[in-house]
């Protein structure tokens, strides 16, 4: 393996993720000076990119869980573009990009080759954004689930096609403004529809492991990757990764916004095994959706020229439904 660049540490002695003063069993993978550093710094992601943050944690954790033996397959999208502008690459692990809609099938091909060669020690991680996963790649992903291919597939959900300039995807929430769901007309932003909930679709395939996470819970994210890597077969991880550019949020607010998505109930964080929900991350401080919507320019039209209480209430009902459906409210939660 080529020598990984020395990891620099900026934080010591806080209680934040990555605390090196904790015992080794409580330390995060990122606190490990020998961590894989799968995605090196110096890539061209925007400031505050949730996807870059998530990818670094996920692949480092996957590499740690697999003893460094991971092959990553990437769909076309921000993550691919910002990490590999020829002749540069930010990847310290074997990495393959083919097309936008085929990452699950390419990953399945890699897994099949490894099986044929008897290399059970090398593990495969497929990854893509919500466009590549929820929309164009869904057929290939469903095939990967159906065959129970031994792959951890990660969807970095930033709720739109960010790479092409913020157009609506199947994961764009109702009322959100994108370049193709403009904030004009009687019902501005993305229309309210049936939605496309890929974690639930993945669960319907009854694959061994499905989980959701956000970049606000990085320890939780690492733990889920470790759990997923301990399982053979098709695994699906759906990670909410706020996009400062597309969402119109401050670069330093990425983690806070992701946490608000969790705390409102708009993004339920849970785990499911063989199609059944087995664990949820409870909401300890419940937050009205308005607090989540207000800092985001993609929802600005809900607050001026006049406040669209009707739309906000509709979104609140969605959050409430998630909270009831997944039992998200902790007993000691502040209502």
């Amino acid at each position, binding site marked *: 393996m*080529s020598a990984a660049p020395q990891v620099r540490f900026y934080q010591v002695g806080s209680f934040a993720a990555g605390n090196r003063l904790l015992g080794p069993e409580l330390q995060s993978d990122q606190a490990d000076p020998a961590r894989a550093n799968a995605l090196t710094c110096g890539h061209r992601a925007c400031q505050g990119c949730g996807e870059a943050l998530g990818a670094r944690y996920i692949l480092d954790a996957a590499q740690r869980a697999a003893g460094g033996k*991971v092959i990553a397959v990437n769909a076309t999208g921000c993550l691919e573009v910002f990490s590999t502008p*020829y002749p540069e*690459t930010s990847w310290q692990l074997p990495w393959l990009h083919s*097309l936008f809609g085929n990452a699950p099938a390419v990953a399945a091909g890699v897994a*099949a*080759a490894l099986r044929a*060669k008897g290399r059970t020690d090398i593990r495969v991680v497929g990854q893509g954004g919500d466009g590549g996963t929820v929309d164009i790649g869904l*057929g*290939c992903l469903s095939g990967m689930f159906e065959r129970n291919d031994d792959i951890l597939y990660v969807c970095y959900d930033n709720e739109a096609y960010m790479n092409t300039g913020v157009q609506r995807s199947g994961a764009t929430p109702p009322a959100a403004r994108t370049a193709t769901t403009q904030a004009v007309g009687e019902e501005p932003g993305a229309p309210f529809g049936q939605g496309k909930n890929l974690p639930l679709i993945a669960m319907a395939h009854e694959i061994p492991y499905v989980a959701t996470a956000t970049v606000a819970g990085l320890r939780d994210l690492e733990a889920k990757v470790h759990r997923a890597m301990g399982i053979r077969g098709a695994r699906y991880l759906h990670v909410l990764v706020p996009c400062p550019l597309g969402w119109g949020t401050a670069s330093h607010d990425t983690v806070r916004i992701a946490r608000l998505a969790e705390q409102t109930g708009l993004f339920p964080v849970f785990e499911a095994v063989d199609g059944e929900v087995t664990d949820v991350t409870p909401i300890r401080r419940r937050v009205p959706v308005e607090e989540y919507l207000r800092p985001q320019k993609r929802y600005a039209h809900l607050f001026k020229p006049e406040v669209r209480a009707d739309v906000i209430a509709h979104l609140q009902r969605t959050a409430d439904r998630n909270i009831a459906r997944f039992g998200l409210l902790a007993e000691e939660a502040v209502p």
Partner: protein
Amino acid sequence: MLKQTEGSRAVAETVAYCRPEVIAAYPISPQTHIVEELSRLVKSGALKPCEYVNVESEFAAMSMCIGASAAGARAYTATASQGLLYMVEALYNASGLGLPIVMTVANRAIGAPINIWNDHSDSMSQRDSGWIQLYARDNQEAADLHPQAFKLAEELSLPVMVCMDGFVLTHAWERIEVPEQAQVDAFLPPYEPRQVLDPNEPVSIGAMVGPEAFTEVRYLAHAKQMQALDAIPRIAGEFRQVFGRDSGGLLHPYRCEFADTIVVALGSVFGTVCDVVDEMRDRGVRIGALAITSFRPFPLDAVRTVLGGARQVVVLERALAVGVGGIVSANVRTALSGIHLDGHTVIAGLGGRPITKESLHRLFDDAVAGRLEQLTFLDLNTELVERELARMAQTRRSGPSAENILRDVGSNR
């Protein structure tokens, strides 16, 4: 071993002897018998180690081959027609990434209208995809081209398409010398990838390339494919040494010496063409035939050498370039640039219409007598198309309503 068998089965057995490690399978007629037989061979343990994966689409089949090949496995799939078109995005990707995937195309027409029978519309549509394309004249060659295709693909790190006519070859039972494992092993060594996804030596494959280097990448792809013009005849020679028969190569001239008229064709129709050439030669007509086996890369110099001395050339096309006529003809013309001779394009056998000796006799007689037009549709039902053209001229059409009104009142000519 010489046996009476089906073309698809001979191909499947030969492919199995090539020891592919990953086979992606998705059914489409007339390719199905190939993957069916491979499924049996893998399941029965005759071919191992091999991962036989049933996928959800042709797009996934080619994508899976891309992943498998990049991970260092010998990868194979087969398809036809709409299936080939459905995997087009991945086809360009496989060649762009330089992955030595081998695929059988059981040639079939493309809809609409839907038609499952043979012509070359599918593979011809992929002439610029960066894949090497080899066309089999008969089932013996269809089987024999596969070990050669793997060898060629792996030497050049380029994907290779072996094209065999759907039904006409795939479903035909005949005497075929199916290669044996020891022979194939002697001819085709295990695959050593040029570059592989390996955690011990990580590489990034498939990076984004901007305008500053993209032209160079494409140039190199072209230069690499041109190397196949040397590799294909050499590999055919190596094949002859091990198997003792002529198969593959760039092209096959037949009775072209002192020929005034030479008929160019690809695939299974060549046998019929040769029969007609024989019969016309018996009548003293100076006619010959040329089969092009390697359509991509197109052997410009070799074609020029064979055709250069003729008076006229007739290109028998099994596909139609709508709006211009012939696909192969355009390449033949490039080969003959600077040489003055009459060129004729004949569109024949679309959607499985039989190309009979009788029709070919008539066609070639017309050519020899100087009566052949530049573009001919063989056996076209002219009565039907003229009636339909007339009917279309009469019916209301889409467009500005004023034009329809004017025509209805008879003042628009």
